[in-house]
Protein backbone atom coordinates (compact mmCIF):
# COMPACT_ATOMS: atom_id res chain seq x y z
CA UNK A 1 0.00 0.00 0.00
CA UNK A 2 1.12 3.53 -0.69
CA UNK A 3 1.38 5.80 2.35
CA UNK A 4 -1.63 7.76 1.16
CA UNK A 5 -3.63 4.57 0.91
CA UNK A 6 -2.56 3.61 4.39
CA UNK A 7 -3.70 6.98 5.61
CA UNK A 8 -7.01 6.65 3.86
CA UNK A 9 -7.45 3.13 5.12
CA UNK A 10 -6.68 4.09 8.70
CA UNK A 11 -8.89 7.13 8.42
CA UNK A 12 -11.65 4.93 7.08
CA UNK A 13 -11.22 2.53 9.96
CA UNK A 14 -11.20 5.40 12.40
CA UNK A 15 -14.33 6.99 11.02
CA UNK A 16 -16.12 3.66 10.74
CA UNK A 17 -15.29 3.06 14.37
CA UNK A 18 -16.56 6.50 15.24
CA UNK A 19 -19.83 5.84 13.44
CA UNK A 20 -20.35 2.55 15.23
CA UNK A 21 -19.45 3.88 18.65
CA UNK A 22 -21.21 7.22 18.49
CA UNK A 23 -24.34 6.00 16.82
CA UNK A 24 -24.64 9.26 14.91
CA UNK A 25 -25.02 7.64 11.52
CA UNK A 26 -28.70 8.41 11.43
CA UNK A 27 -29.72 10.91 8.77
CA UNK A 28 -30.75 14.35 9.92
CA UNK A 29 -30.63 17.88 8.60
CA UNK A 30 -27.10 18.18 9.98
CA UNK A 31 -25.93 14.94 8.40
CA UNK A 32 -27.05 16.15 5.01
CA UNK A 33 -24.05 18.45 4.52
CA UNK A 34 -21.68 15.61 5.36
CA UNK A 35 -23.49 13.46 2.83
CA UNK A 36 -23.53 16.27 0.25
CA UNK A 37 -19.74 16.30 0.43
CA UNK A 38 -19.75 12.62 -0.41
CA UNK A 39 -19.35 11.39 3.16
CA UNK A 40 -16.03 9.98 4.21
CA UNK A 41 -14.79 9.25 0.70
CA UNK A 42 -15.78 12.69 -0.53
CA UNK A 43 -13.96 14.40 2.32
CA UNK A 44 -10.87 12.25 1.70
CA UNK A 45 -10.92 13.25 -1.98
CA UNK A 46 -11.41 16.95 -1.21
CA UNK A 47 -8.57 16.79 1.29
CA UNK A 48 -6.18 15.28 -1.24
CA UNK A 49 -7.11 17.87 -3.85
CA UNK A 50 -6.81 20.63 -1.25
CA UNK A 51 -3.29 19.53 -0.31
CA UNK A 52 -2.34 19.60 -3.98
CA UNK A 53 -3.79 23.10 -4.38
CA UNK A 54 -1.75 24.32 -1.41
CA UNK A 55 1.38 22.67 -2.77
CA UNK A 56 1.10 24.77 -5.93
CA UNK A 57 0.01 28.00 -4.23
CA UNK A 58 3.02 30.26 -3.75
CA UNK A 59 0.94 32.60 -1.61
CA UNK A 60 0.66 30.10 1.24
CA UNK A 61 2.97 27.19 0.57
CA UNK A 62 5.64 28.60 2.88
CA UNK A 63 3.30 28.02 5.83
CA UNK A 64 3.30 24.31 5.04
CA UNK A 65 6.86 23.82 3.83
CA UNK A 66 8.00 22.29 7.13
CA UNK A 67 4.78 20.54 8.07
CA UNK A 68 4.03 16.87 8.10
CA UNK A 69 1.70 16.62 5.12
CA UNK A 70 0.24 13.29 6.20
CA UNK A 71 -0.66 14.62 9.60
CA UNK A 72 -2.05 17.83 8.17
CA UNK A 73 -4.24 15.91 5.72
CA UNK A 74 -5.51 13.57 8.41
CA UNK A 75 -6.35 16.34 10.87
CA UNK A 76 -7.84 18.56 8.18
CA UNK A 77 -10.12 15.73 7.04
CA UNK A 78 -11.22 15.13 10.61
CA UNK A 79 -11.81 18.81 11.14
CA UNK A 80 -13.80 19.20 7.94
CA UNK A 81 -15.78 16.09 8.86
CA UNK A 82 -16.75 17.50 12.26
CA UNK A 83 -17.49 20.95 10.83
CA UNK A 84 -20.08 19.41 8.51
CA UNK A 85 -21.44 17.36 11.43
CA UNK A 86 -20.02 14.14 10.10
CA UNK A 87 -19.54 11.13 12.33
CA UNK A 88 -15.90 11.90 13.13
CA UNK A 89 -13.98 13.27 16.04
CA UNK A 90 -11.33 15.93 15.64
CA UNK A 91 -8.18 14.76 17.40
CA UNK A 92 -5.86 17.61 16.45
CA UNK A 93 -4.73 20.67 18.37
CA UNK A 94 -6.94 23.71 18.75
CA UNK A 95 -7.08 26.12 15.82
CA UNK A 96 -5.47 28.82 17.95
CA UNK A 97 -2.57 26.57 19.05
CA UNK A 98 -1.91 25.47 15.48
CA UNK A 99 -1.85 28.94 14.00
CA UNK A 100 -0.12 30.86 16.78
CA UNK A 101 3.22 32.07 15.48
CA UNK A 102 2.34 31.26 11.86
CA UNK A 103 1.48 34.89 11.20
CA UNK A 104 -1.28 34.02 8.76
CA UNK A 105 -2.44 37.21 7.07
CA UNK A 106 -5.94 38.01 5.85
CA UNK A 107 -4.61 37.45 2.36
CA UNK A 108 -3.16 34.08 3.36
CA UNK A 109 -6.47 33.03 4.84
CA UNK A 110 -8.32 34.09 1.69
CA UNK A 111 -5.82 32.15 -0.42
CA UNK A 112 -6.59 29.01 1.58
CA UNK A 113 -10.32 29.65 1.10
CA UNK A 114 -9.72 29.82 -2.65
CA UNK A 115 -7.60 26.66 -2.58
CA UNK A 116 -10.46 24.86 -0.84
CA UNK A 117 -12.94 26.25 -3.39
CA UNK A 118 -10.72 24.88 -6.17
CA UNK A 119 -10.46 21.51 -4.44
CA UNK A 120 -14.23 21.30 -4.04
CA UNK A 121 -14.71 22.35 -7.67
CA UNK A 122 -12.46 19.54 -8.78
CA UNK A 123 -14.39 17.16 -6.55
CA UNK A 124 -17.59 18.26 -8.35
CA UNK A 125 -19.12 19.73 -5.20
CA UNK A 126 -21.90 22.15 -6.16
CA UNK A 127 -21.53 25.87 -5.41
CA UNK A 128 -24.41 25.69 -2.96
CA UNK A 129 -22.82 22.92 -0.92
CA UNK A 130 -19.44 24.67 -1.13
CA UNK A 131 -20.96 27.83 0.30
CA UNK A 132 -22.58 25.95 3.18
CA UNK A 133 -19.20 24.45 4.04
CA UNK A 134 -17.27 27.72 3.62
CA UNK A 135 -19.73 29.65 5.78
CA UNK A 136 -19.11 27.18 8.62
CA UNK A 137 -15.34 27.26 8.20
CA UNK A 138 -15.36 31.06 8.05
CA UNK A 139 -16.27 31.11 11.75
CA UNK A 140 -12.74 29.91 12.54
CA UNK A 141 -11.08 32.90 10.88
CA UNK A 142 -10.50 34.67 14.19
CA UNK A 143 -8.64 31.58 15.44
CA UNK A 144 -6.37 31.53 12.41
CA UNK A 145 -5.25 34.97 11.26
CA UNK A 146 -2.82 37.44 12.80
CA UNK A 147 -1.70 35.11 15.59
Amino acid at each position, binding site marked *: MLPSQVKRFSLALFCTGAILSSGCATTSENDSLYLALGGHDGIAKITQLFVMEIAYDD*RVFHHFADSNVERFAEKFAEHLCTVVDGPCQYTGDSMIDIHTGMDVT*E*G*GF*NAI*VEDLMNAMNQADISIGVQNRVLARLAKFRGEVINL
Partner: protein
Amino acid sequence: MTIVKPLTAATLFFSLCVQSALAQDGRIKGTGGVNSISGAGGGGLIPWATLSSHASAQQDGGTLFATRTNVDDFSLDVIGLSASFKNRLEFSLARQEFTIKANNAQIEQDIIGVKLRVAGDLIFGNTPQLSIGAERHSLRDPATAFAVGAREDNGTDYYISAARAWINGPFHRTTMLNINARYSRANQYGILGYSGDEKDGAVALELAAAMFITRSWVIGAEFRQKPDNLSALKEDSARDIFVAWLPSKRWSVTAAYVDLGDIAGAADQTGYYLSLQGTF
Protein backbone atom coordinates in the same frame (compact mmCIF):
# COMPACT_ATOMS: atom_id res chain seq x y z
CA MET B 1 -13.56 61.12 -29.29
CA THR B 2 -16.10 58.72 -27.89
CA ILE B 3 -14.56 55.87 -29.82
CA VAL B 4 -10.94 56.85 -29.27
CA LYS B 5 -11.15 57.13 -25.51
CA PRO B 6 -12.36 53.63 -24.71
CA LEU B 7 -9.80 52.28 -27.14
CA THR B 8 -7.02 54.21 -25.45
CA ALA B 9 -8.24 52.96 -22.11
CA ALA B 10 -8.33 49.40 -23.40
CA THR B 11 -4.76 49.69 -24.63
CA LEU B 12 -3.75 51.12 -21.27
CA PHE B 13 -5.38 48.24 -19.41
CA PHE B 14 -3.62 45.76 -21.55
CA SER B 15 -0.15 47.20 -21.16
CA LEU B 16 -0.55 47.78 -17.44
CA CYS B 17 -1.97 44.36 -16.79
CA VAL B 18 0.73 42.65 -18.77
CA GLN B 19 3.39 44.64 -16.95
CA SER B 20 1.90 43.82 -13.58
CA ALA B 21 4.31 41.05 -12.68
CA LEU B 22 3.15 40.51 -9.13
CA ALA B 23 -0.59 40.10 -8.80
CA GLN B 24 -2.11 41.57 -5.66
CA ASP B 25 -4.62 38.81 -5.16
CA GLY B 26 -5.14 38.70 -1.42
CA ARG B 27 -8.89 39.09 -1.51
CA ILE B 28 -11.46 36.64 -2.81
CA LYS B 29 -12.50 37.12 -6.40
CA GLY B 30 -15.27 39.64 -6.89
CA THR B 31 -14.86 41.39 -3.53
CA GLY B 32 -13.43 44.43 -5.29
CA GLY B 33 -16.57 44.90 -7.33
CA VAL B 34 -16.24 47.11 -10.39
CA ASN B 35 -15.79 50.86 -10.87
CA SER B 36 -18.85 53.05 -10.71
CA ILE B 37 -19.48 55.90 -13.15
CA SER B 38 -17.81 58.24 -10.64
CA GLY B 39 -14.70 56.04 -10.61
CA ALA B 40 -15.08 54.83 -7.02
CA GLY B 41 -15.10 51.10 -6.43
CA GLY B 42 -18.62 49.83 -6.30
CA GLY B 43 -21.34 48.80 -8.57
CA GLY B 44 -22.16 50.81 -11.66
CA LEU B 45 -24.42 53.67 -10.64
CA ILE B 46 -23.23 53.97 -7.04
CA PRO B 47 -20.08 53.38 -5.01
CA TRP B 48 -20.06 50.49 -2.56
CA ALA B 49 -18.30 50.17 0.80
CA THR B 50 -15.90 47.74 -0.88
CA LEU B 51 -12.51 48.97 -2.04
CA SER B 52 -11.55 48.33 -5.65
CA SER B 53 -9.01 45.67 -6.69
CA HIS B 54 -8.24 42.43 -4.84
CA ALA B 55 -5.50 43.89 -2.64
CA SER B 56 -5.72 42.73 0.98
CA ALA B 57 -4.43 44.34 4.18
CA GLN B 58 -0.76 43.89 3.22
CA GLN B 59 -1.17 44.83 -0.43
CA ASP B 60 -1.88 47.67 -2.83
CA GLY B 61 -3.80 47.36 -6.06
CA GLY B 62 -5.39 49.28 -8.85
CA THR B 63 -7.96 49.16 -11.58
CA LEU B 64 -8.59 50.76 -14.96
CA PHE B 65 -12.01 50.91 -16.50
CA ALA B 66 -14.07 52.14 -19.40
CA THR B 67 -17.84 52.41 -19.27
CA ARG B 68 -20.50 53.33 -21.79
CA THR B 69 -24.05 54.11 -20.76
CA ASN B 70 -26.48 54.65 -23.57
CA VAL B 71 -30.08 55.74 -23.03
CA ASP B 72 -32.72 57.09 -25.40
CA ASP B 73 -31.55 60.69 -25.73
CA PHE B 74 -28.13 60.68 -24.08
CA SER B 75 -24.96 58.71 -23.64
CA LEU B 76 -22.28 58.82 -21.00
CA ASP B 77 -18.75 57.56 -21.61
CA VAL B 78 -16.44 57.23 -18.65
CA ILE B 79 -12.82 56.24 -18.38
CA GLY B 80 -10.94 56.15 -15.13
CA LEU B 81 -8.73 54.42 -12.66
CA SER B 82 -8.53 53.69 -8.99
CA ALA B 83 -5.78 52.78 -6.57
CA SER B 84 -6.33 50.98 -3.28
CA PHE B 85 -3.91 50.77 -0.40
CA LYS B 86 -3.92 48.02 2.25
CA ASN B 87 -7.66 47.46 1.79
CA ARG B 88 -8.01 50.70 3.71
CA LEU B 89 -7.85 53.67 1.38
CA GLU B 90 -8.96 54.13 -2.20
CA PHE B 91 -8.35 56.97 -4.61
CA SER B 92 -10.16 57.24 -7.92
CA LEU B 93 -10.13 59.44 -10.99
CA ALA B 94 -12.76 59.54 -13.71
CA ARG B 95 -13.42 61.56 -16.80
CA GLN B 96 -17.03 61.62 -17.92
CA GLU B 97 -18.19 62.62 -21.35
CA PHE B 98 -21.91 63.17 -21.60
CA THR B 99 -23.44 63.44 -25.06
CA ILE B 100 -26.77 65.01 -25.90
CA LYS B 101 -27.76 63.08 -28.99
CA ALA B 102 -30.18 65.68 -30.38
CA ASN B 103 -27.42 68.17 -31.17
CA ASN B 104 -24.36 66.00 -30.52
CA ALA B 105 -23.33 68.41 -27.78
CA GLN B 106 -20.88 67.19 -25.20
CA ILE B 107 -20.37 67.98 -21.53
CA GLU B 108 -17.24 66.78 -19.79
CA GLN B 109 -16.71 66.35 -16.09
CA ASP B 110 -13.77 65.24 -13.92
CA ILE B 111 -14.25 63.42 -10.64
CA ILE B 112 -11.67 62.76 -7.96
CA GLY B 113 -12.76 60.31 -5.31
CA VAL B 114 -11.42 59.13 -1.99
CA LYS B 115 -12.84 56.35 0.15
CA LEU B 116 -11.75 55.11 3.56
CA ARG B 117 -12.74 51.78 5.07
CA VAL B 118 -13.38 52.75 8.67
CA ALA B 119 -14.51 49.42 10.13
CA GLY B 120 -15.50 45.86 9.52
CA ASP B 121 -15.11 43.44 6.69
CA LEU B 122 -17.26 42.60 3.71
CA ILE B 123 -17.42 38.87 4.46
CA PHE B 124 -15.87 37.98 7.81
CA GLY B 125 -16.48 38.95 11.41
CA ASN B 126 -19.48 40.57 13.05
CA THR B 127 -19.21 44.07 11.61
CA PRO B 128 -20.22 44.89 8.05
CA GLN B 129 -17.70 46.80 5.99
CA LEU B 130 -18.22 50.49 6.72
CA SER B 131 -16.64 53.13 4.54
CA ILE B 132 -16.82 56.88 4.15
CA GLY B 133 -16.06 58.66 0.95
CA ALA B 134 -16.02 61.92 -0.93
CA GLU B 135 -16.28 62.68 -4.63
CA ARG B 136 -15.09 66.00 -5.92
CA HIS B 137 -16.77 66.83 -9.22
CA SER B 138 -15.76 69.64 -11.56
CA LEU B 139 -17.39 70.40 -14.87
CA ARG B 140 -15.11 71.17 -17.76
CA ASP B 141 -18.04 72.56 -19.76
CA PRO B 142 -20.30 74.48 -17.35
CA ALA B 143 -22.35 76.46 -19.89
CA THR B 144 -25.27 74.01 -20.01
CA ALA B 145 -25.35 73.73 -16.22
CA PHE B 146 -25.65 77.47 -15.78
CA ALA B 147 -28.21 77.67 -18.56
CA VAL B 148 -30.54 75.29 -16.72
CA GLY B 149 -30.22 77.16 -13.46
CA ALA B 150 -27.39 75.45 -11.59
CA ARG B 151 -25.63 77.66 -9.09
CA GLU B 152 -22.16 76.14 -9.38
CA ASP B 153 -19.97 74.18 -11.76
CA ASN B 154 -18.34 72.03 -9.10
CA GLY B 155 -19.26 70.28 -5.92
CA THR B 156 -18.32 67.56 -3.49
CA ASP B 157 -20.51 64.62 -2.53
CA TYR B 158 -19.99 62.88 0.81
CA TYR B 159 -21.22 59.40 1.56
CA ILE B 160 -21.22 56.73 4.19
CA SER B 161 -21.53 53.19 3.00
CA ALA B 162 -22.12 49.78 4.57
CA ALA B 163 -21.79 46.44 2.83
CA ARG B 164 -22.08 42.84 3.91
CA ALA B 165 -21.77 39.62 1.99
CA TRP B 166 -23.14 36.33 3.24
CA ILE B 167 -21.16 33.37 1.93
CA ASN B 168 -24.15 31.09 2.30
CA GLY B 169 -26.92 33.49 1.31
CA PRO B 170 -30.33 32.83 -0.26
CA PHE B 171 -30.35 29.71 -2.46
CA HIS B 172 -26.92 28.94 -0.91
CA ARG B 173 -25.46 31.69 -3.07
CA THR B 174 -23.00 34.30 -1.82
CA THR B 175 -25.04 37.47 -1.60
CA MET B 176 -24.15 41.07 -0.85
CA LEU B 177 -26.20 44.03 0.27
CA ASN B 178 -24.92 47.59 0.24
CA ILE B 179 -26.49 50.77 1.53
CA ASN B 180 -25.22 54.33 1.16
CA ALA B 181 -26.36 57.65 2.50
CA ARG B 182 -25.01 60.46 0.34
CA TYR B 183 -25.10 64.19 0.76
CA SER B 184 -25.03 65.68 -2.71
CA ARG B 185 -25.71 69.00 -4.35
CA ALA B 186 -25.34 67.51 -7.82
CA ASN B 187 -27.86 67.90 -10.62
CA GLN B 188 -27.83 64.71 -12.70
CA TYR B 189 -24.53 63.41 -11.28
CA GLY B 190 -23.09 66.92 -11.66
CA ILE B 191 -23.47 66.92 -15.45
CA LEU B 192 -25.97 69.76 -14.96
CA GLY B 193 -23.92 71.45 -12.26
CA TYR B 194 -24.52 71.87 -8.57
CA SER B 195 -27.36 73.29 -6.47
CA GLY B 196 -30.37 75.02 -7.89
CA ASP B 197 -33.18 77.45 -7.23
CA GLU B 198 -35.35 74.88 -5.47
CA LYS B 199 -32.78 73.22 -3.22
CA ASP B 200 -29.16 73.48 -2.30
CA GLY B 201 -28.74 69.72 -2.04
CA ALA B 202 -30.09 66.70 -0.23
CA VAL B 203 -29.27 63.47 1.54
CA ALA B 204 -30.01 60.61 -0.81
CA LEU B 205 -30.34 56.87 -0.31
CA GLU B 206 -28.50 54.37 -2.46
CA LEU B 207 -28.96 50.59 -2.42
CA ALA B 208 -27.39 47.63 -4.12
CA ALA B 209 -27.82 43.88 -4.00
CA ALA B 210 -25.66 41.32 -5.75
CA MET B 211 -25.59 37.54 -5.89
CA PHE B 212 -22.83 35.22 -7.10
CA ILE B 213 -24.65 32.64 -9.20
CA THR B 214 -21.29 30.96 -9.72
CA ARG B 215 -17.79 32.12 -8.76
CA SER B 216 -17.62 34.01 -12.06
CA TRP B 217 -21.16 35.23 -12.75
CA VAL B 218 -22.86 37.85 -10.63
CA ILE B 219 -26.31 39.34 -10.96
CA GLY B 220 -27.70 42.27 -9.07
CA ALA B 221 -29.62 45.50 -8.92
CA GLU B 222 -29.03 49.05 -7.76
CA PHE B 223 -31.11 52.03 -6.80
CA ARG B 224 -29.91 55.63 -6.58
CA GLN B 225 -32.02 58.39 -5.16
CA LYS B 226 -30.96 61.86 -6.23
CA PRO B 227 -31.49 65.43 -5.13
CA ASP B 228 -33.98 67.40 -7.21
CA ASN B 229 -32.58 70.91 -7.02
CA LEU B 230 -33.82 72.57 -10.19
CA SER B 231 -37.42 73.75 -10.36
CA ALA B 232 -37.41 73.71 -14.17
CA LEU B 233 -36.13 70.16 -14.59
CA LYS B 234 -37.46 67.22 -12.63
CA GLU B 235 -34.81 64.72 -11.52
CA ASP B 236 -35.71 61.10 -10.90
CA SER B 237 -34.14 58.23 -9.08
CA ALA B 238 -31.98 55.89 -11.16
CA ARG B 239 -31.90 52.10 -11.10
CA ASP B 240 -30.29 49.21 -12.86
CA ILE B 241 -30.21 45.46 -13.05
CA PHE B 242 -26.86 43.99 -13.99
CA VAL B 243 -24.96 40.88 -14.82
CA ALA B 244 -21.20 40.77 -14.36
CA TRP B 245 -18.73 38.24 -15.66
CA LEU B 246 -15.45 37.78 -13.82
CA PRO B 247 -13.40 35.30 -15.81
CA SER B 248 -10.42 35.92 -13.52
CA LYS B 249 -9.22 38.38 -10.90
CA ARG B 250 -7.75 40.44 -13.74
CA TRP B 251 -10.88 41.23 -15.74
CA SER B 252 -14.55 41.93 -15.43
CA VAL B 253 -17.26 42.78 -17.89
CA THR B 254 -20.53 44.20 -16.63
CA ALA B 255 -23.71 44.71 -18.61
CA ALA B 256 -26.80 46.36 -17.22
CA TYR B 257 -30.22 47.60 -18.08
CA VAL B 258 -30.52 51.11 -16.71
CA ASP B 259 -33.55 53.25 -16.00
CA LEU B 260 -32.40 56.79 -15.32
CA GLY B 261 -35.85 58.36 -15.33
CA ASP B 262 -36.32 61.87 -16.66
CA ILE B 263 -33.14 63.72 -17.61
CA ALA B 264 -33.22 67.42 -18.48
CA GLY B 265 -36.82 67.26 -19.62
CA ALA B 266 -36.44 64.09 -21.68
CA ALA B 267 -38.76 61.48 -20.20
CA ASP B 268 -38.07 57.87 -19.21
CA GLN B 269 -34.47 57.45 -20.20
CA THR B 270 -33.72 53.76 -20.36
CA GLY B 271 -30.96 51.84 -22.06
CA TYR B 272 -27.83 49.81 -21.52
CA TYR B 273 -24.66 50.09 -19.50
CA LEU B 274 -21.51 48.26 -20.46
CA SER B 275 -18.28 48.35 -18.48
CA LEU B 276 -14.88 46.76 -18.89
CA GLN B 277 -12.47 46.68 -15.97
CA GLY B 278 -8.90 45.54 -15.59
CA THR B 279 -7.42 44.91 -12.14
CA PHE B 280 -3.76 44.77 -11.27
